[in-house]
């Protein structure tokens, strides 16, 4: 349907002799509904934060941050191993996802000929991967990386690779948008001065889009550290009383520790989950602030 057809149809149906009281009442009612809908989302977020803060804040202390989890005494229990695990996973993810995501985005935006079927396949495939449930990535990790062809065991590296594959589509999609925002005139100017295509990309396109790409990477990493399901499926350790000491080490992460505590019948352990959530949310908030800062400070206006 074209715009003109829609307008014609609209003109046929919307016949309003004068603003009747009924119309005005409906408009007021509908606006109230919309305010209600927006208000509901805000209320949900506020209640959620309030609930977590109320349960968790009294539990946060230096001891909580630096102790290992205890199965028996909630008061001696902490999240040191979970914090270390999450930091390790974040670094592994960044190392894998940054080159792979940016390279894919550059290929799709700067090189791929869209009339070729394999390039369209890559594109549709990435859209689909972005919508595959995270628990399915856990299955992939279990069958392919922990066991099977790669057989890394239940290690940090296996967890990091699984999470990387999960967030890779996010990085690619955001990086593509950033690259697309660099106007063609920049590329044409560079090529006209005799630069090769790669020189143009490396010296002009990437510097011009780096802020957007960095934002995408940070968003992807903050998604990765909040993921629970894939790590559960590949078998992260529960309540380990040691920090990971390398890529081949067993590990836990903040969401896994939180999940383990919510499953505990002892109410005091459940409150520890809230405290760990608070720590995780602070980390996420910091990362998002950095992303917003980067976006505002370095974003190029063309």
């Amino acid at each position, binding site marked *: 349907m074209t*715009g003109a057809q829609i307008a014609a149809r609209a003109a046929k149906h919307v016949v309003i002799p004068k603003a009747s009281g009924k119309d005005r009442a409906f408009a007021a009612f*509908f606006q109230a509904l919309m305010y209600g809908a927006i208000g509901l989302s805000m209320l949900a977020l506020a209640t959620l934060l309030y609930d977590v803060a109320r349960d968790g804040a009294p539990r946060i202390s230096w001891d909580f941050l630096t102790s290992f989890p205890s199965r028996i005494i909630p008061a001696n229990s902490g999240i040191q191993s979970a914090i270390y695990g999450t930091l390790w996973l974040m670094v592994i993810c960044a190392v894998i996802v940054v080159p792979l995501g940016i390279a894919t985005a550059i*290929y799709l935006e700067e090189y791929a000929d869209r009339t070729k079927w394999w390039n369209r396949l890559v594109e549709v495939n990435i859209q689909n991967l972005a919508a595959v449930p995270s628990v399915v990535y856990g299955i992939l990790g279990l069958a*392919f990386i922990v066991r099977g062809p790669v057989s890394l065991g239940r290690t940090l590296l296996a967890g990091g690779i699984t999470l990387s594959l999960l967030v890779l589509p996010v990085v690619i999609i955001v990086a593509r948008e950033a690259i697309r925002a660099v106007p063609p005139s920049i590329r044409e100017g560079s090529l006209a001065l005799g630069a090769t295509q790669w020189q143009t990309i490396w010296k002009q396109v990437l510097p011009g889009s780096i802020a957007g790409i960095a934002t995408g990477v940070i968003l992807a990493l903050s998604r990765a550290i909040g993921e629970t399901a894939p790590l*559960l499926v590949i078998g992260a350790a529960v309540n380990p009383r040691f920090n990971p000491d390398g890529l081949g080490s067993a590990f836990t992460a903040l969401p896994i520790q939180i999940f383990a505590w919510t499953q505990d019948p002892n109410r005091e352990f459940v409150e520890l989950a809230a405290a760990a959530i608070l720590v995780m949310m602070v980390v996420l908030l910091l990362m998002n602030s950095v992303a917003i800062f980067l976006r505002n400070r370095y974003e190029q206006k063309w």
Partner: protein
Amino acid sequence: MGHRTSMVRRPSGRSRFEGAVKGILFGAAAVSVLTTIAIVFSLLNETLSFFGDVPIGDFLFGTKWTPQFAADQQSFGVLPLVWGTLYLTGIGLIVAIPVGILSGMYLSEFAPRRVRKVIKPILEVLAGVPTIVFGYFALTFFTPEVLKNGLGLDVNQFNALSAGIVLGILVVPTIATLVEDAMSSVPQSLREGSAGLGANRVQTAVRVVFPAALSGVVAALVLGASRAIGETVIILIAGGQQANLSLNPYESYQSMAAFIAATARGDIPTGSIKYETIFVVGMTLFVFTLILNMVSIRLVRKYRQVYE
């Protein structure tokens, strides 16, 4: 210029380098295709050996899902898990569809710029909250304090109502953002035409802009549904871990994703029937979300063609 270059050049070192770069970049892009192949391969492999043990008809149409029982009492009918997934998603969408559409419509058609500047980041924060936090919220606040104490409902500690509603809240930002995008890409001339015929803003939004953006709106809903179907942790924590084929929202239900996460732990032996159930349920879930996602991609493409 010391020398003439012929029209057809031999590949120089420089252009060979350019070719190599292109090859490397394509290699990176191929990783995502390999990921898909690996997912399908690992799912298919164990699914096929599962169907060597259990007839496919028993799996698809059986109404009892009891893999945790002893071998002679095990039953592998997937319907309770599929039903649990759809039931919870349904409850979620009852919340998320009206709230998401109305929020998106408000942001696109009504919100003053200053209000938008406040609301958009809040929705982004809501979208960025890890799902385990929603699970915690459903278990420790929504079920006991809102449903039990507030509304006086006789719900179980783990129940579909709480998990479903919180699932809906999770999906609201997804739907609202996509609906806003769909509606704001409707050309301004339609709004002007409608206003010129004497319609007020609500009439314009509801009867002109909304129908014009309909395929985008439907794509948003489909994507929201696909997100809800694949969501794991909220249901695992607050919805319970009991396969259930009933209609009572106060009871405990299990979804496909929650079953996978509850069953797959590190120490499950490879090749056991329990191990295979993870994959066959994962395959079912994968097919569900794949279909929904293809539908949504089609719809988005269709509505882009109209105005661009």
